[in-house]
């Protein structure tokens, strides 16, 4: 029983980190109907930026987020303007899969040229510290990571809920045409939205780099998880992606207690079962026609 509860705690902490990455992914889909296969590569890019700041300048990985998020926001806006804006309407979703995959490959290529193929890890002094609460061990880094992720998610939620920009975003998600008629500049919303997605990737990347070792090819592993999470939660639903991420974290770490090599696999099974019952995911609205 002790082991099971320990695994659930670990799963929830891990899930929190994935929730942050996945929320960026699902936000981008919601606004632009773009499936961003580069989200994993952006997270890894964020991890490398944090790694450089930490090893070269000695900046604490959690503090470096203040630098990396604005930078990555710019990268995101740039990617959106250069590669995605020109896609024809009606086929955006399909074409965006290929275009963002190309972006992911490009980032992977640039990273492996810059940093070579060896695994990197960010090791701050508190990397192995942990608390003990009621007999359960909680890794300090994981706790900070999860708290930070949830705080940023809260900020993102507040941004979408209470600001004028947030209203513009939500209007664009619901109906781009009406939003345009009402004077929302949907092009700007799309660019800023992609920037926000990339910024969440920067923050998540810093955290990821502290928790796990990574190399330029790590984004394949990440993207398969992120996609599963957003599909499970329902594409476009930020709340759904948080629930999806927590489910993934808990299921994987519970299975890991019994059979570590099957941990990731188990989550895919959960995903397939959910899709069998609810093709639109847990919180996804049924799109009238997924192709438009």
């Amino acid at each position, binding site marked *: 029983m002790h082991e099971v509860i320990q695994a659930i705690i670990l799963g929830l902490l891990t899930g929190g980190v994935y929730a942050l990455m996945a929320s960026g992914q699902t936000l981008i889909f919601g606004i632009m109907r773009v499936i961003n296969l580069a989200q994993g590569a952006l997270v890894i890019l964020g991890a490398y930026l944090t790694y450089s700041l930490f090893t070269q300048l000695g900046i604490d990985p959690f503090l470096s987020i203040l630098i990396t998020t604005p930078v990555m926001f710019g990268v995101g806006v740039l990617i959106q303007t250069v590669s995605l804006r020109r896609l024809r309407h009606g086929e955006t979703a399909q074409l965006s899969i290929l275009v963002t995959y190309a972006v992911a490959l490009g980032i992977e290529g640039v990273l492996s040229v810059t940093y070579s193929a060896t695994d990197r890890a960010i090791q701050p002094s508190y990397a192995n510290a942990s608390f003990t609460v009621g007999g359960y061990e909680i890794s300090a880094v994981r706790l900070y990571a999860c708290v930070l992720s949830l705080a940023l998610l809260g900020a993102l939620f507040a941004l979408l809920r209470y600001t004028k920009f947030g209203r513009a975003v939500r209007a664009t998600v619901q109906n781009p045409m009406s939003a345009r008629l009402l004077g929302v500049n949907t092009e700007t919303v799309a660019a800023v939205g992609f920037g926000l997605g990339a910024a969440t990737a920067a923050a998540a990347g810093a955290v990821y780099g502290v928790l796990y070792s990574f190399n330029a090819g790590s984004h394949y592993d990440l993207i398969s998880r992120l*996609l599963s999470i957003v599909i499970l939660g329902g594409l476009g639903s930020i709340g759904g992606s948080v629930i999806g991420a927590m489910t993934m974290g808990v299921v994987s770490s519970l299975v890991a207690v019994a059979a570590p090599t099957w941990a990731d696999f188990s989550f895919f099974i959960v995903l397939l079962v959910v899709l069998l019952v609810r093709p*639109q995911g847990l919180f996804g609205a049924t799109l009238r026609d997924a192709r438009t």
Partner: protein
Amino acid sequence: MTAERIKYLGAALFFAVLIALPFVFAAHWFVNLMVFTLIYAGASSAWNLVGGFAGYPSLGHAAFFGIGAYLEAIYFTHHSIGDGWLPFAALPVIGVCAAVVGLGVGAIAMRTRADVFAIVTITFLFVVQTLASNLRSLTGGSQGIGIKLPPFPPDTYERPYYFVLVALLALAVGVNMAAVHSKFGPALWAIRADEDRARGVGVPVTTVKLLTFSVSVGIVAMIGAVWAYYLSYVYPQFAIDPLLSVGIVLMAYLGGRTTVWGPVLGTFIIVPAQQYFAYQLGSSEFYLIAYAAVFLVIMLVLPRGILPSIADRIRTGATKKTAEPVPDDERVPT
């Protein structure tokens, strides 16, 4: 002579040239390049059935490629059925096995539409990859499985694979043509244009798309099996590679998906170019960057593909009535 007969004659001529090719240019590097081109051409052409005609952009085809490769390799380790040409005899069995798996996968994945379908299928790809590394007793885990080198004469070593691949490409193109020229074709474009309406007017939507998916992945699995035998070695990251999935989609897009010959044309441009880049740039990192750049340019400049663009050019040139291109959803494949 009807237009239809010209098409069949053209196809026959194309395959006759392919068969004659290794006798004219016998250099190893050339036949080797052609073997890889044919692997991609067959896979892209088979993908086109479901990804192009039916409008279900599968990114999971590499999983079936890998399933075929592993079935061939596993068959080898458990049964000594002889070597040389005999292992090719296992191809139809492998194709049918993969098609059956495809029916099951399709039954779940095809409950979703276009974009979500793409994600579900790529997720399936990662599932198969995990299975290949975890089922150690069957697949050898991350070590992979070796296949005994067949005793083909060194001078013409590539030829048996080459001819089998030509046959498989002919099968893929043949199925594409049969689809276009039968009742099946219109059912597929109806599904692509508006699935709900197609169901409404009595198209057996579920049957048609599941059948298409399973035929498509069956062909891809057979090609994977030949690939495994040719390289005589399979391991998870290599046999089940997301790059293959996306590569065949890119080739179909370049040539023109929703056309019979588009994927073949796209492949015959991209694979030689790819090999040239790999040869010139050597180290894989720069190769990735170059590939990504080419990829982006193709998607942004020619999102409709070469053949549909040419067809529009001819149509507007001939009638001079309208410069409005036909939307892909209303296009009737040629």
